[in-house]
């Protein structure tokens, strides 16, 4: 399907040329508005020159902080490792508990493996406060990783990846997920690094020795202006049932970066993000899903969540789909997450019909 879509996009370039015969008469357009690969313009071509490793080696620097969010993003079963780098003398500002402000110079790395390392992604905050994104692609031998093109790689042959192929995201893909919420960093937050980890989180990764959490960051002086309550009472999603807690955490991590209150999709009214300091977020998810009309009629379903009936709920149907026309999430995954889907279906089954506020 994705290949067909690429073919189709090539085709539309041709069709578009035919349709746009009148454009030649328009004034010259500003070059400034034409999208470019400027985000990655100054990035090193080789990962080994990009600050992740001890120079001259492939050993991760000791001053990087490994971490593991309690609700991981589903990435088609890839094994992931993550690191945070904060410049010396700087700290994260937690004045807004759910929109941490990271200092310029912050870098975050995430490595994706299918039996071998395939890709390492970088997010970096620049001196002017903007963020840039990059993907590095490992060779089969694991001896080097090179900067991917800004358009990404639609189909990279990788033995061990589902279907034997792997997708490297484009710059637009990076922005789609990381610039749809209050802060581009998704895995380092009060909820994701809470010491009170959810044992029911699908695809959960163990917190290994040395992995930092919320309290570690504070203890090391790397988190400033955090409220006493945030540090004393480890954030957790407060629900009556473990199923609901895990389900809402899953939706937060896999959907909430786009479907949230303050982002560009807020007008859809579908709110799936959680907040460490706002217990009302649980009810917001329910009010925006249960019995609510869906924006589209995909699968001929007209409600986001029908209590007790996952088969009639568009939210679950989209999770069950991997057609590019209907799947959710629309990016970063080519196969269904069986554990995540089973959890969401179980949650929907447990929702009592016509009862609100009973997650």
């Amino acid at each position: 399907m994705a290949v067909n879509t690429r073919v189709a996009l090539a085709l539309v370039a041709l069709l578009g040329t035919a349709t746009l015969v009148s454009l030649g008469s328009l004034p010259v357009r500003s070059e400034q508005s034409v999208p470019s690969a400027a985000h990655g313009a100054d990035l090193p071509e080789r990962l080994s020159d990009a600050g992740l490793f001890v120079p001259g080696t492939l050993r991760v620097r000791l001053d990087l902080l490994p971490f593991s969010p309690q609700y991981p993003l589903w990435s088609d079963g890839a094994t992931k490792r993550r690191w945070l780098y904060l410049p010396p003398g700087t700290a994260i500002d937690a004045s807004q508990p759910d929109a941490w402000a990271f200092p310029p110079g912050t870098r975050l790395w995430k490595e994706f493996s299918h039996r071998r390392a395939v890709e390492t992604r970088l997010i970096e905050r620049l001196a002017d406060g903007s963020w840039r994104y990059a993907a590095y692609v490992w060779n089969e031998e694991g001896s080097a990783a090179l900067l991917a093109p800004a358009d990404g790689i639609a189909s990279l042959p990788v033995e061990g990846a589902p279907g034997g192929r792997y997708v490297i995201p484009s710059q637009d893909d990076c922005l789609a997920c990381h610039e749809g919420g209050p802060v581009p960093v998704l895995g380092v937050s009060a909820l994701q690094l809470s010491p009170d980890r959810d044992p029911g989180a699908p695809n959960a990764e163990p917190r290994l020795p040395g992995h930092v959490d919320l309290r570690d960051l504070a203890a090391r002086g790397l988190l400033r202006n955090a409220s006493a309550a945030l540090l004393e009472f480890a954030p957790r999603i407060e629900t009556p049932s473990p199923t609901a807690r895990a389900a809402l955490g899953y939706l937060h991590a896999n959907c909430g970066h786009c479907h949230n209150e303050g982002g560009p999709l807020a007008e859809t009214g579908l709110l799936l993000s959680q907040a460490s300091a706002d217990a009302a977020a649980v009810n917001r998810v329910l009010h925006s899903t249960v019995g609510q009309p869906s924006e589209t009629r995909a699968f001929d379903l007209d409600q986001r969540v029908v209590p007790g009936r996952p088969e009639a709920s568009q939210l679950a149907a989209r999770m069950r789909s991997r057609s590019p026309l209907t799947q959710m999430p629309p990016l970063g995954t080519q196969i269904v997450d069986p554990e995540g889907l089973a959890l969401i279906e179980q949650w929907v089954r447990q929702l009592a019909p016509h009862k609100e506020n009973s997650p």
Partner: protein
Amino acid sequence: MTRAPLLGTSLAVLLAFSLPPPAHAAAGESAATKPAANAKIERGRYLVTTSGCNDCHTPWVPGPKGPEPDMSRMLSGHPQTEVIPTPPQLPPGPWMVLASGTNTAWAGPWGVSFTANLTPDKETGLGKWTLRNFVDTIRTGRRKGRGREVLPPMPIPMYKHFTDADLEAIFAYLQSIPAVKNRVPEPRPPAS
């Protein structure tokens, strides 16, 4: 197959002079901002008309001189009442794309696509869209910059090069036209 868009573009250019005037700016705007808002909408109307948007987003009907856009349903996309059967399979050869008589349903290697309702209807059109949603869609070729890919024949590879000012003008114009309640069907995947 390629004649239809070319013919449509010519018609759209001619129709630029007969389109209804844009809605007036909201009451209460200052004397200074009103002309600016009107100028933006006028610019958007010009761009929409000359860039061929009506070719596919306004359903075509038979007219005395042949098929022509039904401007009473201007830019409302594929009519929800027009049920499209499974497209016929084309024999091997150079022909790849089929279009319905309304010019609003298209079949090709991508499946079947239906042109979107661009009017400001809140439930079925762009009524709840923000300028950012619109710009992100055109720039990235994904709905609102983050959803599914926008399908052919929408010429995203060309339109993504519009300036921000032009996209803002186009969006302002689209928000000013009459709302038409018309729920466009979801696209269909290619036959497996």
